[in-house]
């Protein structure tokens, strides 16, 4: 059994991470589809702000709840979910608010309203939150998560910790002062600092922020506990990270950088998938004379020249794969060739699954 097969059959969470444009979404969907064919109840979750997963599954659009995707002849099930970060955030507030007034205070706060849907970090955190929620519900054997490009994916791994740090720090306490301004001074230096800040931001901004953090503060414990659990799920032995890359040097750099981060944080690394590998041109040999003989001089020449270009690409791709193999000694590595056409439906995903060794 290949390394990836084992992960698909045995793990309960697979997180696909890597640079932009390397086929993460397609890989995540192909893995989930293959898992369904292998008898598992699998769900693929994408958090990309753009609507890519729906495209690759041939669906019109996905909601914030898992949608069943019909797969002929599969023993298992395929579900797909495209995250709505704003709705997830709202649901989280509803869950943790001690009462209706605390809930409404947050949901109607202008800072919350305007920024809960727009800010990058919030999307990443909400994705983890949704993943955790689905995992807790236990409806699926396997969750496959498609993450944003790795630069933000690091934000995304850090987000639960960052949130906990903020909640544990005194800053939140500071805003929990009973007076409506929330700016009761706890120390002289802080008083001056906030006086300065007030001058910069204006009273309104600070007032809104203060109200936001006050309202949020009532839910702090719930949020923090949840963040710890999300964090624990990422490090769980039932979870594995699948690094997705293309043979391009910058994408390989990012994959290796991500691999080091996983090691630093003791997060479980599973496998590397190298997409878009040029395979035409891996066979050596002079073709000019033979091509001329077969196709005539003009066309034969074009074929030979084109082959030269493909050989250069194949050479680059081989070097990239060797570099990955050298640096990731022993880790499962799967090569997927560059298909002639985009993968955009279930048949394409099935073909890709076969190339992933999951047929």
């Amino acid at each position: 059994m290949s390394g990836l097969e084992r992960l698909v059959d045995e793990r309960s969470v697979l997180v696909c991470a890597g640079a932009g444009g390397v086929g993460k979404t397609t890989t995540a969907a192909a893995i989930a589809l293959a898992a369904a064919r292998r008898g598992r109840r699998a769900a693929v979750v994408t958090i990309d702000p753009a609507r890519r997963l729906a495209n690759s599954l041939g669906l019109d659009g996905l909601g914030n709840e898992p949608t069943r995707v019909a797969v002929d002849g599969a023993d298992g099930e395929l579900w797909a979910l495209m995250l709505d970060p704003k709705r997830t955030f709202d649901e989280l507030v509803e869950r943790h608010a001690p009462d209706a007034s605390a809930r409404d205070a947050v949901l109607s706060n202008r800072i919350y309203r305007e920024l809960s849907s727009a800010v990058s970090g919030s999307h990443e955190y909400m994705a983890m939150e949704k993943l955790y929620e689905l995992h807790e519900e236990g409806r699926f054997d396997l969750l496959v998560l498609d993450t944003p490009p790795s630069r933000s994916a690091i934000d995304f791994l850090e987000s639960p910790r960052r949130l906990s740090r903020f909640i544990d720090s005194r800053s939140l306490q500071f805003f929990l002062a009973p007076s409506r301004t929330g700016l009761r001074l706890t120390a002289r230096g802080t008083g001056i600092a906030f006086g300065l800040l007030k001058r910069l931001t204006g009273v309104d901004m600070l007032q809104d922020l203060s109200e936001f953090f006050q309202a949020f503060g009532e839910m702090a414990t719930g949020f923090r506990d949840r963040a710890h659990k999300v964090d624990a799920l990422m490090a769980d032995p039932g979870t594995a990270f699948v690094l997705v890359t293309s043979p391009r040097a910058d994408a390989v750099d990012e994959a290796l950088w991500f691999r080091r981060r996983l090691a630093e944080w003791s997060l479980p690394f599973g496998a590397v998938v190298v997409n878009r590998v040029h395979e035409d041109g891996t066979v050596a040999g002079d073709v000019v004379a033979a091509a001329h003989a077969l196709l005539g001089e003009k066309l034969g020449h074009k074929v030979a020249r084109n082959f030269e270009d493909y050989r250069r690409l194949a050479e680059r791709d081989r070097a990239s794969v060797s570099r990955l193999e050298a640096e990731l000694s022993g880790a499962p590595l799967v090569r997927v060739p560059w298909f002639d056409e985009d993968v955009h439906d279930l048949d394409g995903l099935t073909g890709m699954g076969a190339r992933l060794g999951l047929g």
Partner: protein
Amino acid sequence: MAGLFDKRLIVVTGKGGVGKTTVAAALGMAAARAGRRTIVCEVSAQERVSGMFGRGAVGYSETEVAERLYAISVDPEHAQEEYLRDQIPSRTLYRLLVDNRIFSYLAAATPGLRELVTIGKIWELAQLERRDRRSAPYDLVIVDAPATGHGLGMLGTPRTFRDVARVGPLARRADYIHSFLTDPALTGVAVVALPEEMPVNETLELRDELRSRLGMEIDVAIVNGVYPERFTGPEAERIAAVAGEDGPLGSALHAALAEHNRARTQRVQLRRLRKELDPVVALPYLFEPELRGGELERLSRELERRL
């Protein structure tokens, strides 16, 4: 299209992995050649532009990488520090604020603040009167913006802060930035795509979102990596008729058919984009293992010709 380099700011965005940074650098090269004192501004942790010009990382300092062409990497930490320093002339008071632990946690936890200070610095670079007299103004700032969704988030942040803060220095500044970004005479949007189905879909979605959320329009779509049409349909048929054997010749024939198929698939996507957006500039696929100065030059000449 004559006016793209006459704007003060060009926002380069698009789906992840489509070559935004390369296009931003090539645009910068073309603008500098057209006589504009230009700076290319990166906003991600990993700097790449300076490397394309054979330099080491430049960090948060405006560094000349070629004639009339500068590069900077803007990170929110430096941008926030600079903004606060400018706002609080007293060194003592400044230290009091930034050394305050509660303030630093608050700043880290305030949603959108990182995006705001980043776009604020980009706006500052584009001002004719810079923040201090020693900094010379630029004719053009080209920002290699984050991918679609996050790029939109960043562009929308000033308005949000303006609306929340309402009055005071922050609201005023946020309003200046928002007005600058949404003035088509000052700010242009170049969206980068690949001639593939999903990047094209995302480009069209981005156009709709920019329009509905911010009232901004795309000035040009730049499609990277367009395959040459090396083989005509009849030629491909002739090749297909003899393909299928093993060895190097078989591999060469297969490569020719693959090229033909990809070029054809790409043309379909390019046509889809052209139906919806104008102008669309196609850049050639470079059969080069890695991008070097010469290839960048070639792309920039191509852009110059088409713009």
